[in-house]
């Protein structure tokens, strides 16, 4: 069915008191960003609801995008027809028929803001209800909890019909909860952590460590492509790549093997904190889940957290691997995450990392390194890329190929 408009109902943000205007403005911006490429539609973010006038854009595609924007409780596609009873009847039958299966029940629910229209609310309900009964064979009327509620709104600028409500993504509009830095590897967990942070309104920037030539261009491209998968929720995401080769080589050279991982993570955290400070980030997000791998123990967290006072938020900390995978599949990062490119964590991974590293020992081993110099040089090589919805990194030739195909 080709709809002409979509009515969007806000989520929890309507309870947020004074901040409400901010939330609504932000949601409006996010919706417009995620609908970039649809050139004809118009988004109006009003106080109580948002209206999207499609002006001929494809309603199915628009709704697909909308269902990913955080801060939306649900939305209803509608069709506007002229104030002409025959047109209303025809559209109503088409709409109800599309959802009709054997045994379906319905009712008509009319609201009227234009009181000059020829029929009043009850007359409209009767007239349309009777028409549908006659023209959709087998359908019956039910007042309490029918399968289909056909909502009809008579307004001065036309009559709006809708019969369907789709679930939104819930959560809070991204950007209303400040900015966070996500430590993005190429694995399954970190994109999920990023997604969950964004769901609670955090505007997320990706921090990715790469160590050429030990890690490949493809591993970097994969991290960028994972970022692309998170863009539908916001439109664009900043991707920050941090050169990590020198630090990893030094650690490998100077630190005893069981502590390689701990010291490496301490450096990553230091760098992420510095980048956050430079870019106005308030917290660090990562994909650590308790006990999942040997290094993700509470002892390990103690030894690593030591280098920063910035809040470290671990959205998946208490989730089982299978639960994380379910989310990864839902947000379509799973298939990408399991592509076999070495990242900087796997390449230098010691055979037996310390599961219970000691804080004092960590500090002691690290003191052998030129911490400030290493950090400074890594920061000097940082590169920031703005990643947009729909971009391709793993298959850079895709548009070239598209011409061939």
């Amino acid at each position, binding site marked *: 069915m080709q709809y002409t408009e979509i009515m969007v109902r806000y989520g929890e943000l309507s309870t947020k008191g004074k901040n409400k205007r901010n939330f609504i403005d932000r949601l409006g911006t996010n919706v417009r960003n995620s609908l970039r490429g649809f050139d004809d539609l118009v988004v109006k973010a009003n106080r109580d609801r948002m209206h999207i006038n499609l002006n001929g854009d494809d309603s199915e595609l628009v709704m697909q995008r909308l269902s990913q924007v955080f801060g939306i409780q649900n939305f209803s596609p509608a069709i506007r027809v002229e104030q002409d009873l025959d047109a209303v009847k025809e559209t109503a039958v088409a709409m109800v028929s599309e959802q009709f299966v054997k045994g379906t029940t319905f009712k008509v629910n009319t609201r009227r803001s234009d009181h000059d229209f020829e029929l009043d609310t009850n007359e409209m309900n009767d007239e349309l209800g009777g028409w549908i009964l006659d023209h959709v064979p087998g359908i019956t009327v039910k007042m309490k909890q029918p399968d289909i509620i056909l909502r009809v709104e008579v307004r001065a600028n036309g009559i709006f019909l809708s019969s369907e409500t789709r679930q939104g993504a819930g959560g809070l509009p991204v950007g209303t909860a400040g900015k966070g830095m996500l430590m993005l590897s190429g694995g399954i967990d970190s994109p999920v952590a990023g997604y969950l942070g964004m769901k609670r309104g955090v505007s997320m920037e990706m921090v990715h460590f790469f160590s050429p030539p030990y890690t490949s*261009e*493809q591993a970097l491209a994969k991290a960028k492509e994972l970022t692309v998968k998170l863009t539908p929720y916001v439109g664009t995401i900043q991707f920050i790549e941090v050169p990590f080769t020198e630090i990893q080589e030094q650690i490998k050279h100077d630190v005893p093997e069981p502590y390689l991982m701990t010291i490496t993570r301490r450096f990553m955290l230091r760098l992420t904190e510095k980048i956050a400070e430079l870019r106005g980030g308030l917290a660090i997000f990562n994909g650590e889940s308790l006990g999942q791998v040997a290094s993700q123990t509470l002892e390990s967290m103690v030894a690593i957290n030591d280098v920063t006072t910035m809040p470290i938020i671990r959205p998946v900390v208490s989730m089982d691997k299978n639960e994380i995978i379910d989310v990864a599949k839902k947000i379509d990062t799973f298939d990408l995450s399991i592509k076999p490119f070495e990242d900087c964590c796997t390449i230098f991974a010691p055979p037996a990392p310390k599961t219970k590293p000691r804080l004092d020992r960590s500090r002691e081993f690290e003191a052998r390194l030129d911490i400030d110099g290493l950090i400074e040089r890594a920061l000097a090589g940082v590169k920031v890329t703005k990643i947009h919805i729909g971009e391709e990194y*793993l*298959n850079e*030739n*895709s548009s070239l*190929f*598209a011409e*061939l*195909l």
Partner: protein
Amino acid sequence: MIYFDNSATTKIAPEVLDTYNKVSEQVWGNPSSLNNLGEVAHNLLEQSRQQIASLLNVLEDEILFTGSGTEGDNWVIKGTAMAKMSHGKHLITTTVEHPAVMNTMAQLEQLGFEVTYLPVDDEGRINVEDLKAALRSDTILVSVMAVNNEIGTVQPLVEIGNVLKDYPTVHFHVDAVQAIGKGVQEAFMSDRVDFVTFSGHKFHAPRGVGFIYSKRGRHIEPLLTGGGQEHNLRSGTENVPAIAGMSKALRLLLENETEMVTKQKTVKEVVFNHINEFGKITTFSKMQSNFAPHILCFAIEGVRGESIVHAFESEGIYISTTSACSSKKNQASGTLLAMNVPEALAKSAVRISFDENNTLEEAKEFNRVFDILYHKFEKINSK
């Protein structure tokens, strides 16, 4: 030259040849290699797959590449037999299938499988009641072609699918080699269909490449084992230039399908109406919608098909006895015999088959030549 033998093969499209050449020259890495050349080839392979999947409105991993339509038919039938032989050893097909299906079934019979061949009516079409009667608890596969390659009959695939909804474990295979781009996609890609065979060179792609649709959740055993390509289901280094070319050819084919089908139907109708005016002509193909728009099979009573083909050839018009595969064996058409057409008449049958590039002018030229040849044959015949 007028080429009316498009069901045998089609001429490769210039744009497709261009893609084939460019890919051969520039993207020649092995898609399985880890290095960048391999990665680029892998990406092109997957993008080609994506494009085909979206053109057919299916999932990417439901498209698997093969070397030909014959391979596709062999694979689905034998692959099903191997995967499901512990459940049963009974297969059902029709009496009018392409030899790629017929001879594969025969081979399985030698191995102890049992095959039911459903009869057809005088239009070459099976009756679903016969299918209902043939289905058994040990049936593992129903294989029915979408469009008959000799006379163009469209089989009642939707009705077959409806019957098979009560037999959810039976694999439903459709050979759509002659059907792609001919306006019957809804039938051969309907919900209940599990496997579909396609061949590239029937729609202006290069030789030596095809693909199958294999519904997610359905499993067949591989015929070619080895390096694990195509999700470990069809080993062998992928023919990337031909696959990319085929993906392009499919896009070109399906872009204006409705328009092109109408065009072929018009060309067919001009010839159909003309030759039907002659007394000794029998047309086996019909004009109605349960016949493909591009195949016209007819016989001139008393004249061998081979003579008709060569007579037209000497006038620069290329047609064929009923199918390229059986034409050199001097056999009567299997489809016509299955329709109970007398053998003498079946041996007089020829097939003309169009593509979207054939024109009304060509049809009129065919008719002009036909008149001359018909009268010539009449002289021979009357003696």
